[in-house]
């Protein structure tokens, strides 16, 4: 009998079985149900409608609510939605609610969830957000679900899942310092297409993945959904275990793939050969090399979101922007309060990142939230309103994603976005990094 992949092992353990095979439908015990201000109120609505107005959630420590989408807006319905979450948290005595306007507020759920120690190797995480797949970076099975499924999980603690087949992506060799996780995942999506991993688990491995930080791995797993993947996952190593141990004392069990696990496909990349890239409008799979798109003139640059608004992303941008000036409006939105604080505390040659960005002429740093990553209410920071051409560290560039249907969005790594902000056209970051590291 062949072995199992990490994904299969986790699903087997959570469904009380010795083994599961791709295609089987199994009832899986959930360790964490994540929801936010966009889908939380609807999930609560389903939960109450179906389980009754007096029902209790299945486990008050396993429902984690992180409002993050429509926080800094005058929109009244958005405020009402956060209030619904607040009331529900009190009524159900939930252990984890990161309330906007209080010191407990954190910011973007997919960066906040691991920061706060809610992501642990070997666990099953479901969330009412498609980028829940981010959490595979720490070796958990994590996937996005809708309100109705989430309402069921809230009451029952279980979900019926089809075991996905696993597609393996191996990055051998060493990625050069101008290559980031974003370049790696855009390459994969460009190769297999926007539905190339439909229903599949995407497992990332190889020496270049091992060399990435947890944040870099998060960027990669975050975008598994952009190829249609059910989950993205990286085998947890010591780095992952250390990251988790520093944030939670809860026990967990590290699960890795068997060497003889059967996979649906195997793709191997030479990390050293990768080049900085962009995804052109209006699909994350429209791969192009940054150096071949130098004729594209830009109106604005955007650094933020669960994909590209982590501290490592801002450090990368600052490496390029230090001592230089941006030529276009440059929007900076740290994903979480922890990232915002780190912008003040992290220095490059004695200068804080906040100062580097201010000197470069970037717009004032916005408070942590999803902001214009998904457009949002009309008054959202960074939202497009016309035919702007934007280069962004976010994850989607569908028509209207950042607000206006007429806008064009190019996705890229923070290094490429920063380099492009300086020139006002799509720019390969090597043009500037060469001078930093001669």
């Amino acid at each position: 009998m062949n072995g199992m992949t990490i994904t299969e092992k986790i699903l087997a353990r959570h469904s009380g079985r010795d083994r599961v095979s791709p295609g089987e439908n199994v009832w899986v015990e959930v360790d964490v149900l994540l929801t936010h201000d966009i889908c939380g109120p609807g999930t609560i609505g389903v939960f109450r409608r179906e389980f009754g107005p007096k029902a209790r959630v299945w486990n008050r420590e396993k429902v984690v609510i992180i409002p993050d989408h429509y926080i800094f807006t005058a929109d009244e319905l958005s405020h009402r939605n956060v209030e619904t979450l607040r009331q529900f948290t009190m009524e159900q005595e939930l252990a984890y609610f990161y309330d906007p306007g209080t010191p407990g507020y954190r910011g973007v759920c997919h960066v906040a969830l691991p920061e706060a120690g809610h992501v642990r190797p070997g666990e099953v995480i479901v969330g009412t957000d498609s980028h829940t797949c981010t959490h595979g970076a720490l070796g958990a099975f994590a996937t996005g679900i809708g309100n109705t499924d989430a309402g069921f999980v809230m009451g029952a603690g279980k979900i019926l899942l089809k075991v996905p087949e696993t597609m393996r992506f191996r990055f051998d060799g060493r990625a050069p310092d101008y290559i980031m996780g974003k370049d790696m995942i855009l390459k994969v999506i460009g190769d297999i297409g926007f539905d190339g991993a439909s229903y599949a688990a995407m497992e990332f491995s190889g020496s270049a993945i091992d060399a990435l930080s947890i944040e870099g791995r998060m960027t990669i797993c975050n975008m598994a959904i952009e190829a249609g993947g059910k989950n993205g996952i990286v085998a947890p190593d010591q780095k992952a275990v250390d990251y988790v141990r520093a944030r939670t004392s809860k026990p967990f069990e590290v699960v890795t793939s068997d060497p003889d696990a059967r996979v649906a496909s195997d793709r191997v990349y030479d990390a050293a050969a990768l080049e900085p890239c962009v995804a052109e409008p209006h699909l994350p799979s429209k791969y192009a090399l940054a150096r071949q798109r130098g004729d594209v003139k830009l109106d604005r640059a955007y650094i933020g979101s669960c994909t590209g608004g982590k501290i490592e992303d801002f450090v990368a941008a600052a490496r390029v922007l230090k001592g230089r000036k941006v030529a276009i409006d440059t929007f900076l939105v740290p994903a979480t309060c922890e990232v915002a604080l780190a912008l003040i505390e992290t220095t490059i040659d004695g200068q804080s990142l906040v100062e580097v960005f201010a000197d470069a002429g970037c717009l004032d740093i916005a408070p942590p939230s999803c902001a214009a990553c998904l457009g949002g209410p009309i008054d959202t920071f960074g939202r497009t309103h016309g035919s702007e051409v934007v280069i962004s560290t976010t994850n989607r560039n569908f028509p209207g994603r950042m607000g206006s249907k007429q806008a064009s969005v190019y996705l890229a790594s923070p290094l490429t976005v920063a380099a492009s902000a300086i020139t006002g056209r799509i720019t390969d970051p090597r043009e500037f990094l060469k001078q930093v590291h001669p």
Partner: protein
Amino acid sequence: MSTQSTPRFSARVYVAGDNIDTDQIIPAQYLNLVPTNPEEYIKLGSYALSGLPDGCAPFVPPPGPRSPYGIVIAGRNFGCGSSREHAPVALGAAGVRAIVAESYARIFFRNAVATGECYPFETAVRLLDRFQTGDEAEIDVPGATLTNRRTGEVFKLQPLGAVGPVVAAGGIFAYARQAGMLK
């Protein structure tokens, strides 16, 4: 949530393209509406497919809130993008009873079934050029066929299998109760 027990129905067709993502189905600025609140459910319907590029025929012409189109015909990867259940809900609330696409994004498909908002039929044949927006069509649900009343052409759809009864019941909770799985 709508109950769709009719095994056969006719409706006008709206033809959309490939990769119709959830932002085009329901733009993010309307995600402040909560699908389980009845008035907001209706409002979501009035914004269905309002994110399609300029130049597309309006899916919900004024004054709304319902669409004249009960069947959406699309290409590959319908419903890609976010996990927002607002997407199948908006279509269902606008009056869509079925979508016929070459393929779906996983979460959208599951949400369409879980909510019972619309039948997500798959077709092996590309239908985008076999229909025009406004054509009258008939779907036979158990027989899994789609007929273009204008041209008389009949297309075989993939059978819905286990998914059909769940949508017919009005979603997973209603189905589970009918089947005695839930009280």
